């Protein structure tokens, strides 16, 4: 569990982060969302003490971060950033093994861990282990960057706009990968992004920052349905609200028994996919892939998200 307790950062007269408190449960993803200059990156960097807080405390599983030397603290916390920051003069394996090496793991253990992570990120170890970052595509570099951050099985993974430099298609894939891997490993992740879409897609909890203050912290559905301030509403985007809410709900939640015509939806589709398919093909009910015949109707979708305002 990560507890952020009244943490503040002042630079001269300006307050970059103003008395922010929040708690992140173990095994969850928290997305910190805000515009440039909202203090979201400063907040993240205070967790691993790349920035020293002016006031307040961060506790990781009950231990205050101020009780540990900064460079030792950081070895226990994964760190992945925009533009990956890989070491250009080290091979993929050495990049991923950097923190385990700092922690004094044996070479055999490091090698096994590197191969395990490459497998996890769908990169064949034999093919990629000895390559250098400059030989990789942007998406591969980014995956190696995240793999490196996860290498020592850290208590916490901090990510600062990790997908910011990727094109939209690769980014969507990277987000799916992260979600899958996070579920498989049970990692606790704090992720900074300016992209509400990304936050909704990935996070269990969203924290919205505005001018150094935490203005709202809650599950994505709450942030979308009941934004606490006009700023949060603006971040969500009024016109996109229903679609964003739909994207959070799996079709299985409102699927009814019985068959329907036409090509079926996959079982892991969201209501947003269902609505899109209804509109595009002009159908009012769609079959859903599953053990027994099931379908989802346009009326059910409308009933599920409608009734606001």
């Amino acid at each position: 569990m990560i507890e952020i307790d009244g943490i503040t950062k002042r630079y001269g007269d300006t307050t970059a982060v103003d008395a922010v408190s929040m708690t992140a449960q173990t095994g969850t993803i928290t997305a910190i969302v805000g515009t440039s200059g909202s203090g979201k990156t400063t907040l993240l960097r205070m967790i691993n003490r790349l920035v020293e807080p002016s006031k307040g405390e961060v506790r990781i599983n009950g231990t205050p971060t101020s009780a540990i030397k900064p460079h030792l603290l950081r070895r226990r916390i994964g760190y992945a950033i925009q533009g990956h920051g890989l070491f250009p003069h080290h091979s993929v394996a050495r990049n991923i093994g950097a923190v385990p090496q700092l922690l004094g793991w044996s070479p055999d253990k490091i090698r096994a861990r590197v191969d395990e992570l490459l497998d996890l990120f769908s990169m064949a170890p034999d093919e990629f282990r000895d390559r250098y970052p400059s030989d990789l595509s942007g998406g591969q570099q980014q995956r190696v960057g995240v793999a490196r951050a996860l290498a020592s099985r850290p208590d916490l993974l901090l990510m600062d706009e990790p997908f910011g430099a990727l094109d939209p298609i690769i980014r969507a894939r990277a987000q799916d990968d992260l979600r899958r891997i996070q579920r498989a490993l049970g990692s606790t992740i704090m992720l900074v992004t300016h992209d509400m879409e990304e936050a909704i897609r990935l996070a269990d909890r969203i924290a919205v920052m505005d001018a150094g203050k935490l203005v709202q912290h809650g599950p994505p559905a709450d942030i979308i349905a009941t934004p606490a301030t006009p700023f949060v509403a603006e971040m969500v985007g009024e016109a996109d609200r229903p679609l964003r809410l739909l994207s959070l709900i799996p079709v299985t939640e409102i699927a009814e028994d019985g068959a329907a015509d036409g090509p079926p939806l996959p079982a892991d589709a969201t209501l947003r996919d269902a609505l899109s398919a209804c509109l595009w093909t002009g159908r009012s009910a769609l079959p859903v892939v599953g053990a027994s015949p099931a379908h989802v109707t346009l009326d059910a979708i409308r009933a599920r998200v409608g009734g606001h305002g």
Partner: protein
Amino acid sequence: MKAATLLRAGLVVLLLTLVLRPELATPLLAPLAPPDGPVIYERASLLSLSLSHLGLVALSSLAATAVAVTLAVLVTRPFGAAFRPLARTVTNLGQTFPPVAVLALAVPVMGFGAGPTLVALFLYGLLPIFENAMAGLTALPPATLDAARGMGFSRWRQLRRVEIPLALPVILAGVRLSVVIALGTATIGSTVAARTLGEVIIAGLLTSNTAYVVQGGLVVGLFAVLIHDALVQLERRLTRR
């Protein structure tokens, strides 16, 4: 590639001949010597002059590299940033002060011999290494440094494992420049009785014997070209990654 290897081998053979068997060059240099004058310098063996010349250059370049790189590392740390202009001024001064003037000033203090030459070469060699090391250490990719610190590298480890290796190509280019300058400049050391290849050139100038001048100049020039080439090869090898 093949042509370069052949040329390189040819130059090495020429240099070895001039240093080990200078008498073989007699037919080549005879037309340049005064009538009935000596063609080949014989007051000292060219081998021992070459070794002493190279020794002076190696010693002064090593010292200059150690001092300049250390200085560049210190002033690129947060605590040393305030000393950056001072370090620049000092190394610039070393380059501005002509080596001949340094020799002249150092002789009264250190006496004749190798000492003043070492000091002059050392001071003259600082600037290229310092400026290149500064350029290399300040132009590192910020994301890589941020990642290294965020992963828990201590400052010392980050310097040793990340900053120095990444800046190495640029630092080595500065060392190479400095070594080549020192090879040429060392010849004037012979004006204050340091044993260098300049002795041959100066003897030629004093006796109007062009053969001596060409002999000495050719050996120094060949050393400079070949050492420059060797250092370029070394840089390539060290920085392939």
